[in-house]
């Protein structure tokens, strides 16, 4: 039983908008299966996801266009199920099955 529990994963959808998709091989949408726990045994959260994306999914070497000082860089909005992550606990938000996490880079053109 314990083994089975450890093997469980959390299916989530990750989306990119506003040009961030270019850092991820032009994929606008990723379907991911994350482990339920991180190395310390804590429930995985958005901070874990950001790390995961940098390590496993990002194709572009320019990390600093996505993360800076341990979180997403300024000018990127993180949206958890269509709401600003500030409403949900920011990077401490614990991921649930079926969550949709959207990363949006602000645009400045006009």
């Amino acid at each position, binding site marked *: 039983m314990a083994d089975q529990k450890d093997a469980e994963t959390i299916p989530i959808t990750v989306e990119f908008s506003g040009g961030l998709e270019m850092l991820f091989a032009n994929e606008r949408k990723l379907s991911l299966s994350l482990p339920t726990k991180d190395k310390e045994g804590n429930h995985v959260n958005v901070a874990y996801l950001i790390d995961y994306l940098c390590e496993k999914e990002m194709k572009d070497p320019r990390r600093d266009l996505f993360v800076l000082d341990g979180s997403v860089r300024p000018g*990127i909005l993180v949206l958890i199920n269509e709401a600003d992550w500030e409403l949900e606990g920011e990077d401490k938000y614990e991921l649930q099955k079926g969550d949709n996490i959207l990363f949006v880079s602000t645009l400045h053109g006009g």
Partner: protein
Amino acid sequence: PPRSRWPLDKMEYKRYGRQLIMPEVGLQGQLRLKKTSVLIVGVGGLGCPSAAYLVGAGVGTVGLVDGDTVEESNLHRQILHSTARVGMTKVESAMVALNSLNPNVKLVPHAARLTPDTALSIFKDYDIVLDCTDSPASRYLISDTCVLLGKPLVSASALRTDGQLMVLNNPPLPPGDAAGGPCYRCVFPKPPPPESVVSCGDGGILGPVVGTMGVLQALEAIKVITRGVHSSVRGPAEAPSLLIFSAYATQMFRTIRLRTRKPKCAACSAQATVTPEALNSGSLDYVQFCGTINPVDAL
């Protein structure tokens, strides 16, 4: 002259009849449009369509801010300008087109780039502001000025095939009042690193993408105005949201719920460091705050 028993001219009933008969506008909404002055900062891909629809709708006064002149590379998306007016200031060129659409609207030219020392004096005469500019520095400056003067702000941007739209500082309550709408700094406390900022010149832009965002800015402004910008009896403002547009996504538009005012916002909180004095003294250097672009590394 004796006051007419009709609040609008016969010509106005004719011209605005199609919107007047709607309950969302009505006679009161039309009168509110008529006595409202709107400032459009940037007369490019966003400013052209938003100005056209606001002037068409019969806003009383429209101010236009832009320091650029019309170039041929603008014309695929900046539909108020024309081939014959290449080289003219964008403000002058737009005024020609807008005046021919609706000569009843008062147009006010501000044919210079917006700067921290001119912003307060220009904005103070307007009731609502549209940010149709194209750089992070101008976006912070415009938002700060709107917060300081208590003006609602309709902010949009576009690049390549994407667009974004927000109504900020709505309701436009004084800094420190948590019931006011969030400002640009609440949503983006820190500017993006300069190497992540891409202009339309570098990244490209599809005309109808920026056009759609500009027309939607006019729509949001009309919604705010007809509900009553400053009216205390108006209904609750809509919850703050961000509209995201991706022309090539299966679902082209998404609406995202935004946060309320940030308790420690540098502009709209009780602890604000953005003040009229700081703005006027030049101690707020927006260009330095946002850094400079190295186009080689740009995303």
